[in-house]
């Protein structure tokens, strides 16, 4: 067991899967020579060569489409789309091709591929380099959406995503790239669709994704001083969603706060909220509160005013504890 940074845990997962399976290759803008805009693919070109580590032109549709065609013909591509905002440049290939081929062709071709893409604000990268667009993709049948929050999770989930026979949108968070955490030395995977309780508590269930897991854990420490014990749940994958872990927790706490970095409106918080109401509204003693970003583009210079943080989570927890 050793400490590993989130970004290096990604590199390790890629290296292990490329060693394990000749069909796995990495493709994207700057992934080879430079080792990736965020260095996720550092060292892979030297180790695996140009055949399996492919620098491309700036042509997102061609990159993703090539990967889809290659996957349908038997390979297992891992694409890097440098910023999640750039996913908009390949939406036909993602939504009409990648997500539809298995179903539309009657299961003749599987599309076992992963698109890794970093989301998130915090680098003052502005409105076109900071968005969290996971809800767009979670809305599309045929896609899996994975959103890991820790080095341990990112490695285990990336390995599972590469081995999965369905297309996966693998959403990293730029602000998490530098964090460190425990990662075991040996082989392990984390199944898609299995959430984790990041901190146990009895008073309020806080479902948080990606970077917001860490903000929720900070909030938990402060709330503990007040005698409020929140249970922090990280679904880890958005689709498939581990409904069971959320419902079981709400059954225990009777109160639910949902936190994500994406804008609050029409986000996955609404989906989780509706799911809990449909499945077991009787378990709730208070209305569900969502915490998310305001409904604006991401500002260049005042990100802290924009980003949801620990204080917003504390406020939301107070509201559900008061029954509003």
């Amino acid at each position, binding site marked *: 067991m050793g400490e590993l940074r989130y970004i290096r845990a990604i590199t390790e997962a890629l290296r292990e899967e490329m060693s394990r399976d000749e069909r796995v*290759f990495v493709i994207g803008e700057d992934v080879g020579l430079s080792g990736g805009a965020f260095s996720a693919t550092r060292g892979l070109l030297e180790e695996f060569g140009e*055949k399996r580590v492919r620098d*491309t*032109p700036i*042509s997102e*549709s*061609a*990159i*993703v*489409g*090539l*990967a*889809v*065609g*290659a*996957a*349908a*013909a*038997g*390979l297992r591509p891992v694409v890097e789309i440098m910023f999640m905002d750039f996913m908009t440049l390949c939406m*036909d*290939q993602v939504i*009409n*091709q990648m997500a539809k*081929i*298995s*179903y*539309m*062709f*009657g*299961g*003749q*071709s*599987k*599309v*076992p591929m992963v698109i890794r893409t970093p989301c998130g604000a915090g680098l003052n990268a502005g409105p076109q380099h900071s968005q969290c667009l996971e809800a767009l993709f979670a809305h599309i*049948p*045929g896609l*899996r959406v994975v959103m890991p929050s820790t080095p341990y999770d990112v490695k285990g989930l990336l390995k599972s995503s590469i081995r*999965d*026979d*369905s*297309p996966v949108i693998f959403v990293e968070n730029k602000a998490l790239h530098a964090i460190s955490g425990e990662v075991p030395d040996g082989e392990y995977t984390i199944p*898609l*669709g299995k959430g984790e309780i990041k901190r146990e508590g009895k008073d309020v269930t806080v479902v948080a994704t990606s970077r917001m897991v860490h903000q929720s854990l900070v909030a938990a420490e402060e709330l503990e001083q007040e005698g409020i014990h929140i249970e922090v749940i990280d679904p880890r994958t958005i689709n*498939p969603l581990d409904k069971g872990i959320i419902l079981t927790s709400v059954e225990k706490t009777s109160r639910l706060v949902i936190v994500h970095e994406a804008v609050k409106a029409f986000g996955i918080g609404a989906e989780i909220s509706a799911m809990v109401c449909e499945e077991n509204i009787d378990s709730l003693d208070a209305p569900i509160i969502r915490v998310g970003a305001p409904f604006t583009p991401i500002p260049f210079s005042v990100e802290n005013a924009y980003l949801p943080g620990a204080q917003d989570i504390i406020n939301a927890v107070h509201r559900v504890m008061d029954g509003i």
Partner: protein
Amino acid sequence: MDTKKDELIKMYTAMVKIRRVEERLMEVFATGVIPGFIHVSIGQEGVAVGVCSALRKDDYITNTHRGHGQAIAKGIDLKGFIAEIYGKRNGVCKGRSGSMHIADKASGILGSNGIVGGGIPLAMGNAFASQYLNDGRVTVCFFGDGASNEGTFHESLNLASLWNLPIMFCCENNEWAQFTPIEKYIRIEEISKRAAAYGMPGISVDGDDILAVYDAAKKAVNRARKGKGPTLIECKTHRWFGHFAGDKQKYRSPEEIEIVRQYDPIQRFQKRLAELNILDEKDIDSIEQRIRWEIEQAVKFAEESPSPEPSELFDDVYGEEK
């Protein structure tokens, strides 16, 4: 009978088969038994057959929404094909694709596409896999003149050329992008000239002359198979009918609709074969009869096939059921 003669008759038969299948499909479509809509390729048979005759059985194609001809030319089983167009369970895609998105991996058809230009990057991916696996296969990517204005065309030609992928890009130029004539969307006379911008050879051929198409395709396919990279071939052809079956073509002059029929690739090839003493009236009749019998068998199969069960709705949404 020498191989050459054999092959020519096979090519002629495939063209007639496409024509008769699509005529029959239009007939049944008009009665309302086929769901959705169909796009027929009548008049363009020379391109589909000329190109696919230059391919091996294990080579790949991706085709377009007007893709019946390409699928038949590549050797799709007619029963599974027509049952698919009927939306039936025994269709080659279990009744999920209909006319517009047919795929048949067994005959190397990795998929037709409902999105104009959507299949171009996918074809490049098929070719990439062949290069990666060194399996010796070549991919032909069919698309139309309209698709050559999509970004995917330009992105893909650049990348395929850069990586010397074993692919041939086949632009079927029928001079219509849905309801709009070509002079309204392309300035240049020959779409093949666009190849120069990506550092690959590009040629334009008479798409209604099947042997011209075949010769050009053969060269491009050989070149691709030898690892020398892609070629863009523009096949200039003609769309006899509307964009979709039942399209009244009010946007098109009656004169033009008549004139395009003079380019009939089947008549031209038939005449050529007759001159070469390869085909006589008796052969033509027997080919027609055989094809009609095969089509009727397939239509019967489609009509008698069950519809998909509602319980199958969730099958194959994901690669593996979780």
